[in-house]
């Protein structure tokens, strides 16, 4: 597989194609997770999460970087799965200890933790309502211009689309603050 090409795709916004290519490693991960008391469903979740972690990593490196992508992906999955097993209180004797020595282990762990925190925001976005979510997604993720967003969402003027977008962001912010407070309360209660 052409690693430079995948990195270029991940950096260049051709994410779907790159992910489709990277899924060729999925069967390997699936086998690994199934051998360690997991299911295919869980393997899919883990793999998806690992793709996000890899994506974030790739944004920080150059196209011709020496980073071994499949190794990074596999290690991420292993670490994610060991976290999952810990959560499920299934202690595995074998393999656990070696994980800290995996390449990129610290880096991966850091990003995994960031993503875990972001899942709170993910819920907020799901509560936000479809129009707002789609609109924010179009602007911040797909990086569409306000012009095309206004057209796509049926606003007569760019300004009214902008106003709507700000309102959505404001609403989302409020929800996020409330959600953060709630999760802080929960954590402190524990």
């Amino acid at each position, binding site marked *: 597989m052409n690693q430079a090409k995948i990195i270029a795709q991940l950096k260049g916004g051709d994410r779907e194609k790159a*992910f489709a290519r990277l899924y060729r490693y*999925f069967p390997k991960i699936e086998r690994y997770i199934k051998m360690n008391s997991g299911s295919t469903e869980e393997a899919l979740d883990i793999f998806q999460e690992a793709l996000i972690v890899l994506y974030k990593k790739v944004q920080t490196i150059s196209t011709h970087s020496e980073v071994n992508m499949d190794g990074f992906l596999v290690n991420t999955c292993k670490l994610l799965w060991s976290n999952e097993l810990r959560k499920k209180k299934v202690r595995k004797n074998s393999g656990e200890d070696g994980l800290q020595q995996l390449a990129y282990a610290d880096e991966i762990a850091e990003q995994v933790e960031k993503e875990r925190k*972001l899942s709170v925001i993910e819920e907020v976005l799901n509560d936000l309502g479809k129009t707002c979510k789609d609109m924010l997604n179009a602007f911040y993720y797909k990086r569409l211009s306000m012009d095309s967003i206004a057209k796509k969402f049926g606003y007569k003027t760019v300004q009214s689309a902008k106003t709507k977008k700000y309102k959505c*962001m404001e609403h989302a912010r409020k929800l996020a603050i409330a959600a953060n407070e709630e999760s802080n309360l929960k954590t402190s209660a524990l």
Partner: protein
Amino acid sequence: MEIEKIEQYLLGKMNGEEAKAFEQVMASDHNLAESVAVQKEMMEGLERVGLKTDAQTGYRRYKLKMWASQIGIALGVLIIGAGIWYFVSLEDKKAYCICSEKEMATIEHSEDAMPNQPECIDTCPPAPMIETPIIESEIEEVTETAEDLKIITDTILEIDTIINIEVLDDEHYSVTGGGSDNSNMHQTGNDNAIQPEFPGGRSAMRQFIATNIRYPQNAFNQGITGTVEVSFSISETGQLGNYKIHKSVNNELDAEAMRIIKKMPKWSPGKVAGEPTSMNFILPIVFEIREE
């Protein structure tokens, strides 16, 4: 507007001086700093949601590609295939026969189907057809009988679809013909019974199914395979209806098979003695996963 400013700052749309000034305000304004942090988090959350969606799309593409490489095209996973034929069975609706592709091909290509019929019949249980007590009245029976025509399609990997009319016995023809001379009926029956057909024929149907069908995810993940048989009627106008699962595998596969059939356009209706006639059809759809 605060949100707008924060957005410009976070997206790097401020020039150096503006950004510096903004950071200075932030340093002294705790509330603003927090707003910036939340808005940044929101952008990262949006990225996460977007990436997940892209990963899901990527997974679908990967699966599609995998299937395609297994058999050559997406047809590889589920093929509608080999033989489509129907037979008359008024009593024992479950009885149907399987004729080999070769036999059917012979029949199909022969100009006079009659001499070849026994070949196929050998492999079929003829009993239910012969025993069928059909004739009670005459003309009215025509439709009823025709409705009971079953068309079975079998779907087998890598074999072309062949549609054929299974041989009908004397009694049947005497019904469809409205009670004329039996010896003639063989001919007229054969010439006049025309099976309903998907617009564009069987290869079009095969393509329609292949392009529209998707392997349900859970079933795929769990490796559930099997043949779902859906029965439905084709009215005199070609309208499909009376969809039923004739043979079930599991909910997901049943639903997918049903979805495809319901998506089909109007067919050209079957004809008996030149008259468009409503008929029933059973279409098996094979869900098969092939390992590379």
